[in-house]
């Protein structure tokens, strides 16, 4: 167990644009941090730098108060679960799980004890003598986790560990990881591009884009108060709707196209006429209300649990989520209302206003 402190860390490969720029992040002891972002945002690189698999171009990374920049991976006392599981194919499950302990010349009795505890926790008792190729995807995943658990390391690193599993198994393993973390209380850093995984697993989410941290906060922070257009669009499914407009300071409203006006009922420190983007989540869009905007219906997607309406509003794609089954019957158009307190406002730079 340990804290992890990342200070002004950058990564660049000779002569190319930087992959990571000025990353600052303090991870508390026992915290579950999820790094989330689209592929190529630098999240995996950051994880690999913490693991010691990538060199650090600038800045420092400290684990448990000790700067590890120049330490080899083996000296950092961290465990990592890979997307590919990376099980040693020529070793049995038991040998896979105890490899690190045997490297450390741990006494046999201790090894057996730890193996027993970990395999019981993960339900792997029956498979200890098998080779990885005789296991299912979920079991391999468990072995990979077991390999990390037996070591009781300072921190767990997860690199998209569930990406190779099917949807049902992923859901199940997600819950297991969360339970394991609750049981072990180990500092964990988890990389994923799946925002649902991020929302469900994290104590705090670190949203990354273009090698820069966009926002750090609790899952609901990011959902309720996204710091910018990127986070707003990335967190939540179906994604947030955006409408461009101009700020009308006198009316405290956003002027959309075709002279539509969207009252926001709050004071904003922005010059009259500035460009502004209004965001609203599909689940907060009202349908068929008084004084709404007219939107053309393009597609109706029933999900069972609800209905996603793909609309066209002011020439912008726009989605609404409803559980009202009346909307299953195709209609030409609907009226759309957006409650003022549910609106997210972003300035011309894409940053959140108030």
């Amino acid at each position: 167990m340990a804290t992890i402190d990342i200070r002004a860390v950058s990564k660049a490969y000779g002569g190319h644009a930087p992959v990571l720029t000025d990353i600052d992040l303090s991870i508390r002891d026992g915290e579950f941090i999820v790094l989330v972002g689209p592929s190529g945002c630098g999240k995996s690189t950051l994880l690999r730098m913490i693991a010691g698999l990538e060199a650090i171009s600038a800045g420092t990374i400290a684990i448990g108060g000790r700067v590890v920049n120049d330490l080899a991976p083996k000296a950092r006392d961290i465990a990592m679960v890979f997307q590919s599981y990376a099980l040693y194919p020529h070793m049995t499950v038991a040998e896979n799980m105890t490899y690190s302990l045997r490297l450390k010349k741990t006494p046999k009795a201790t090894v057996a004890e730890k193996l027993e505890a970990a395999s019981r926790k993960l339900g792997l008792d029956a498979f200890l003598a098998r080779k990885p190729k005789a296991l299912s995807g979920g079991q391999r995943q468990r072995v990979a986790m077991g390999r990390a658990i037996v070591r009781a390391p300072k921190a767990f690193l997860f690199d998209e560990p569930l990406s190779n599993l099917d949807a049902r198994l992923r859901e199940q393993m997600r819950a297991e990881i969360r339970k394991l973390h609750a049981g072990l209380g180990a500092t964990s850093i988890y990389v994923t591009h799946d925002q649902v995984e991020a929302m469900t697993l994290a104590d705090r989410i670190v949203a990354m884009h273009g090698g820069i941290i966009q926002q750090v906060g609790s899952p609901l922070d990011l959902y309720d108060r996204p710091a910018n257009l990127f986070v707003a669009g990335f967190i939540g499914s179906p994604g947030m709707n955006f409408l461009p407009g101009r700020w009308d300071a006198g009316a405290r409203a956003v002027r959309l196209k075709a002279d539509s006006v969207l009252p926001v009922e709050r004071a904003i420190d922005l010059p009259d006429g500035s460009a502004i983007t209004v965001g609203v989540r599909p689940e907060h869009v009202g349908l068929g209300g008084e004084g709404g905007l007219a939107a053309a219906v393009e597609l109706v997607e029933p999900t069972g649990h609800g209905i996603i309406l793909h609309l066209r509003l002011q020439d912008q794609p726009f989605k609404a989520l409803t559980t009202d089954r009346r909307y299953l019957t195709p209609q030409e158009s609907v009226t759309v209302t957006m409650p003022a307190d549910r609106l997210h406002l972003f300035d011309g730079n894409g940053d959140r206003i108030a």
Partner: protein
Amino acid sequence: MRAIGTLAHRLAILAYIAFALFPLFWLVKVSVTPNDLLYSEGIRLWPSRTTFEHFRFVLAHSDFPLFFRNSLIVSLATAFVATALAGFAGYALSRFAFRGKLTVSGLLLVTQMFPLVMLVAPIFKLLSPLGLTNSLTGLVVVYVAFNVPFACFLMQSFFDGIPRDLEEAAMIDGASRFGAFRQIILPLTLPGIAATVGFVFTAAWSEMIFALMLISSNEKATFPVGLLSFVSKFSVDFGQMMAAGVLALIPACLFFLLIQRYLVQGLTAGAVKG
């Protein structure tokens, strides 16, 4: 329709195998044909009378056992030294980014472009002052030099086939890079190593030009050179020559029998997702 297709396919393969193996069959056939029948019976698939006289003569009265031993020493030494060097070099090419990597790869490739005959004279010139002509060591040095580039590419491709995640996992588990190489990567590369050893062994075993040019005495000759001793000024002793040839096939066959288990084994199955 499908059955006919399969049949045609099988027949084509069979025809090819017959075509490829016929020279070997002929080698065996001539080696057991008594001298007096060799020319008198014309072209027959199997002689009316067989004999092992040629084998007996080759083993008891010729220098062949000596050639055989020399060949075995040279080929085994070449195979192991070349594979060890190629293993390390191939690993570096597969895993490390270093300055001049492309140049090194390119130079390795360039060495494969020249006909060996062109290099015989300069190599003789080089080895002569070092006292490495007419010596098995000299032969091993030359063979290793010529086989390492290709073996290196071969090993590189085998290492490329092993996911990096595995050694990274091992290094995080507490192994050094060399430890990860030895305990994780090497066991998984055994099929590749077997293939490389086999390839280099056969290349050295059948090499003729350098063996002929660099070795001058009978005691140091390898068997391809030794085979020539069955050709005299006035006649060719086909029976004995073929018997020696059959004997020379044995170690190569044994060797492949020994390593074929590794050649066909897919050890990496189950390493990563599947």
